[in-house]
C-alpha cells in the first residue's frame, strides 16, 4: 500500500452534544478508491462533514492527517486548499452567484486560476461530458436545480478543481440509472494516481461503476470491518445484518 493521503485515527465527533463518531480509524492511500458503507444513522455523513470542517461538528478526540498536514485545526477553506473536496449530499443554492463566478472564485482561492479562454473551454468540455446544458453557466449555483442537476454540478466542480481526495457523500442518492452512470463515469474519468475517492453510500449500486479498492463498514460511529470489493457484493446479497451481527459479537 502506497503512502496514505488520508489517515484517520480514533476520531470522535459530536453534533449538538451528541456523540456520533466514536473512534473512527481509516486510511486512504494516494490515488485509491475507498467505499464507506453502513446503514442509516451509522455516522457516514457526520464523518464527511467532520473531515471537511463543518463548524456544527465538534471533534472531541482523535486525529486526522491529510497529505502530511494535521487537518483538524484548519478551517474548511484551508482544508479545501490542501486538496480535500466534499461532494455534498445536499448542495446549497446561492442565489445571485452564477456557476461561472462560483467556479472562478473557487479556482482563484485554490490558486488554480487559468486564463479566461482556457477556463471557458475546459468548462465547456466538462459540462459536455457530464451532460450539463450550457445555460447552467450563467444560472445561479444550485438555484432551482433538480436533485440530479445538483449532483452533476458537484462532479463538474470536482472536475474543475481536481482535488487530491474527493469525498462523495451519498452522491448516488436520488439519481436514476442514467444519471448515476453519468456521475459515476465522471468520477472514474477523474480518479487516478493524483486523485483518490472516498465514496460514502448505503447502496452498493454505485460501486459497480466505481470498482473500489477497499470497502469499509461504519456502524455506530466506528469502522467495524473492512475488506475488498467482495464485501460490497456480500452486503448487496445479504444486507448489513450478518456483518453487524458478527461485529457486534466481536466487540461484545
Amino acid at each position, binding site marked *: 500500500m502506497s503512502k496514505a493521503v488520508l489517515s484517520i485515527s480514533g476520531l470522535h465527533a459530536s453534533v449538538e452534544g451528541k456523540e456520533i463518531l466514536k473512534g473512527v480509524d481509516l486510511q486512504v492511500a494516494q490515488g485509491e478508491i475507498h467505499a464507506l458503507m453502513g446503514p442509516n444513522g451509522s455516522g457516514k455523513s457526520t464523518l464527511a462533514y467532520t473531515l471537511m470542517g*463543518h463548524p456544527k461538528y465538534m471533534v472531541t478526540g482523535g486525529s486526522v492527517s491529510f497529505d502530511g498536514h494535521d487537518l483538524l485545526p484548519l478551517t474548511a*477553506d484551508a482544508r*479545501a486548499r490542501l486538496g480535500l473536496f*466534499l461532494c455534498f449530499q445536499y448542495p*446549497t443554492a446561492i442565489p*445571485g452567484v452564477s456557476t461561472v*463566478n462560483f467556479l472562478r*472564485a473557487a479556482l482563484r*482561492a485554490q490558486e488554480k486560476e487559468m486564463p479566461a479562454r482556457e477556463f471557458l473551454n475546459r468548462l465547456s468540455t466538462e459540462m459536455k461530458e457530464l451532460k450539463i446544458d450550457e445555460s447552467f453557466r450563467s444560472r445561479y449555483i444550485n438555484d432551482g436545480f433538480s436533485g440530479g442537476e445538483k449532483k452533476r454540478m458537484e462532479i463538474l466542480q470536482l472536475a474543475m*478543481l481536481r482535488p487530491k481526495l474527493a469525498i462523495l457523500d451519498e452522491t448516488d442518492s436520488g439519481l436514476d440509472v442514467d444519471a448515476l452512470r453519468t456521475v459515476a463515469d465522471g468520477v472514474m474519468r477523474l480518479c487516478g494516481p493524483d486523485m483518490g475517492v472516498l465514496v460514502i453510500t448505503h447502496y452498493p449500486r454505485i460501486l459497480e461503476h466505481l470498482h473500489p479498492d477497499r470497502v469499509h463498514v461504519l456502524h455506530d460511529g466506528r469502522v467495524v470491518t473492512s475488506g475488498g470489493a467482495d464485501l460490497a457484493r456480500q452486503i448487496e446479497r445479504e444486507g448489513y445484518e450478518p456483518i453487524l451481527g458478527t461485529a457486534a459479537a466481536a466487540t461484545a
Partner: protein
Amino acid sequence: MTIPLADSPVGTLGQEVAAARADASPAWLAARRRIAWDAYEALPMPSSQRDEDWRRTDISALHPERFTPIDRVDAAVVDAMRVQRDAAAPTAAFVIDAPVAQPIEGADTLHAQGIIVTTLAEAATVHAELVQRAFSSVRADESKFVALWNALWRGGVFVYVPRGVEALVPVWIAHPAGGDGHAVFPSTVVVLDEGAALTVIDAYASASGPAALLSDAMVILSVGRDARLDYNTVQQWGEGVWHVGLQRTVLDANAKLRFMGVTLGARLQKVWWEVLLEGVGSEADILGICFGDGTQHFDHQSLQAHIGPETRSNLLLKVAVRDRARSVYGGMIDVAPTAVHADGYVANRNLLLSQGAKADSIPRLEIRANDVKCGHGATAGHVDADQRFYLMARGVPPEEASALIVRGFMDDVLDRIPHRGFAELAGTLLDAEIAGGSVTGVAAETS
C-alpha cells in the same frame, strides 16, 4: 477646484433667500414659491415622536436653517461623476444640475431628435406649460421638505421627449454637491409624451468625508400614453449628508416604468418612491438595492397607487446593513375602487451583516377594489451559514465567501436591470462598499 457663481445668494436658508428665488422666477412659479415658503414656515419639522411616518427616523439633529444654499459647482465631484458616465454609458448626454446653467455635454443626438434637455429653471420660462403639467402631480405645500424644495430649488434638469420619439441615447443627470454646510435642491423633471421612450440615469454624489450637507431632492416623472421610461438612480452622498427626497411618477394609459434605485451614501436618507398608475394598463417595475454600514440610516417609503384598471406593479427592494447601520422600509400598495384587475406586489428583503445592524420592514396593502391580485413579503436574516460553508468547502476564505453571498443577494436584482452599463456601475460601487469599510461618496480631489 470650485467655480464660484456670479449671483450667489447670501445667508442661510431663510426668508431673504426665498424672496430672492421668487423674484427671479416667472410669475406662475413665483406664486408657487411664495405659497411653498409660507407652508415651509408654517409646518413643523417632522418628529419621530409625533409623526407616524417618521417614527423610526429621527432628524432632531437636522437644522435646515443652519445650511447655506450652495453657490458653486464642485468640479472635482463633477469630474468623478463624468468618469462614471464614461464607463457606464459613454454615449449618454451628460447634464449637470447646478445653481446656474452648465454646458450640456453630448446632447446633439437628442436635440436633433427634437428632445428637450435643459435646465429646469429655463424650462419653467420657455416651456412653462410642460413644467406646470409635471408640477401638477406635486402640491407645493404637501410636506415640510417638499415645500422647502418648491421654495428654493434652482438650476435643475428638465427633459421632454416628444410624441412617438424614442431617444437614441440615454440622459445622464449629475447632481453634485461640495463644500461644507451647504444645502442642495437636486431637481429632475422628465416628461415623456405619447409613445416616447427614454433611459435616464440620475446620479447624486459628493466627495467622501464628513462634510455636513443637506440634500432636499425632487424627481417628477410623467410618462405619457404608451410611453416607456427606464429610470435608474444612484445615491452616493458622503458620510455627512442628510438626504430627503420625493420621487413621483405618473403613468398614463399603457405607459411603462422600469425604476432602479441604488442607495449607498449619506448619513441619513429618507426617500419616497411613488408611482401613480393612473392610466389603464400601465405598468411599473420598481427595483432597489441599498447597502449601509457605519451608523448610516436609510428610510425608503414606497407607494404603488393603482388608480386605472388592469394596472400592474411589482416592487423589490434588497437591503444589506453592516456595523450599526439601520434600514427602515415602509411600502404601500393602494388600490383605488377604479383599479379593477389590478396586480401589485411589494417585497423587501434584508440581509443583516452584523449583530448591531437593524432592518424594519412594514409593507401594507390598502385594497378598495374587487377582483385584484395583490401581495407583499418581507424578510430579514443573516448570511446563511450553509451557503458560507459551501463556498468555504471550495477553498473560498470566509470573508470572501460572505462578500460573494452579499453580492449574490444584490445581483439577483442587478441582473434584472435593462441598462447593463448602469448595472455594472452599481456592481462596482457595491463591491467597493462591501470590501472597503464605511467609506461612501465619490473619490474626488477637493480643493
